[in-house]
């Protein structure tokens, strides 16, 4: 995080020093981009916040732990695809899963879908990529996550 701040400040200063007009043009573009996506992002974050409150972490662990076999994979893939959990919450949660007896493969499916598939952020993705591309990327990622789970099962 601090590195990002330093890089941004240095880049900004260098840019201003080199060409003021160009820099202002770039910043105007930055602001436009930010304001363009802000309302949709806020809406997504609000919905996620409400859903996450209604379905707390303990419930997630229960759901993931309660099913074994194929159903376990399906539940992990569904929850992972829908949930929007930042990494610093997701990994401790995954460690908890392993501890409570959920297998490595199911945990891998959960983690991988969590990272690669975003159903709640789909509206944002569609705004950038269009419906078709966004749906395809998510569908392929879901299939890929299941494959990763399968491989983990074989090798771990």
């Amino acid at each position, binding site marked *: *995080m601090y590195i*990002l*701040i330093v*890089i*941004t400040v240095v880049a*900004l200063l260098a*840019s201003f020093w080199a060409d003021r007009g*160009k*820099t202002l043009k*770039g910043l105007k*573009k*930055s*602001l*436009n*981009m*930010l304001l*363009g*996506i802000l*309302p*949709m*992002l*806020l*809406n997504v*974050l*609000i919905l*996620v*916040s*409400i859903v996450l*409150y209604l379905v707390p972490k303990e419930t997630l662990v229960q759901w993931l732990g309660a099913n074994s076999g194929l159903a376990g994979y399906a539940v992990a893939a569904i929850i992972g695809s829908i949930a*929007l959990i*930042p*990494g610093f919450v997701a*990994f401790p949660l*995954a*460690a908890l899963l*392993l501890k409570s007896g959920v297998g490595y493969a199911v*945990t*891998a499916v959960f*983690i*991988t879908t969590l990272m*690669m598939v*975003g159903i709640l*952020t789909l509206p*944002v*993705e569609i*705004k*950038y990529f*269009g419906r078709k*591309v966004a749906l*395809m*990327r998510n569908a*392929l*990622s879901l299939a*890929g*996550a299941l*494959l*990763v789970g399968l*491989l983990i099962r074989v*090798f*771990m």
Partner: protein
Amino acid sequence: MRKLIQKIGLGEYLLVVMFGLVLLISRFTGWSLGLGAGKNFWSFFSEMIAFLPLMFILIGLVDVWVPNNKIEKHIGPGSGIMGTFWIVLLAMLQAGPLYGAFPVAYLLSKKGCSIKNVFIYLGAFSTLKIPMLAFEIGFLGFKFSLLRTLFTLPVFIGIGYIMEWYFKDREFTIDLPAYGKL
């Protein structure tokens, strides 16, 4: 009046305003839904607001300084395995949530990045960020993290190839949702 509301885009902020009211009411009445969801919201919001403006400033600067198609040689169509290497490296060095990668994907595509590498970028960004890997190793162990990484890499490279194969002869554009005219 309606025009004015449309102009400042209040319609899009309707949910935000309503949520704000709920939070305010919850503060006085102690409604647990408002307080709980509010707590979640602030943790997401602080992540977003710390990170997104910096990201957009950098994107804006790169956009005005790097000429279009300048980096095509390195990550464009025909850049081969080295192009993929550079794009994975770029993604690994970043941080932040996936929605922060979408505007970068727009920028990359505009500057000449191939379709394949755009999706490899998104894949690497979502699964191989170094700050996140460190976290993963800490909580889930080295073996699990290494295997997951090794298996995920060919998966998202494959997705890149599939997307390029499918969209090569079809229309493929990444839009930039913007507030005003650019």
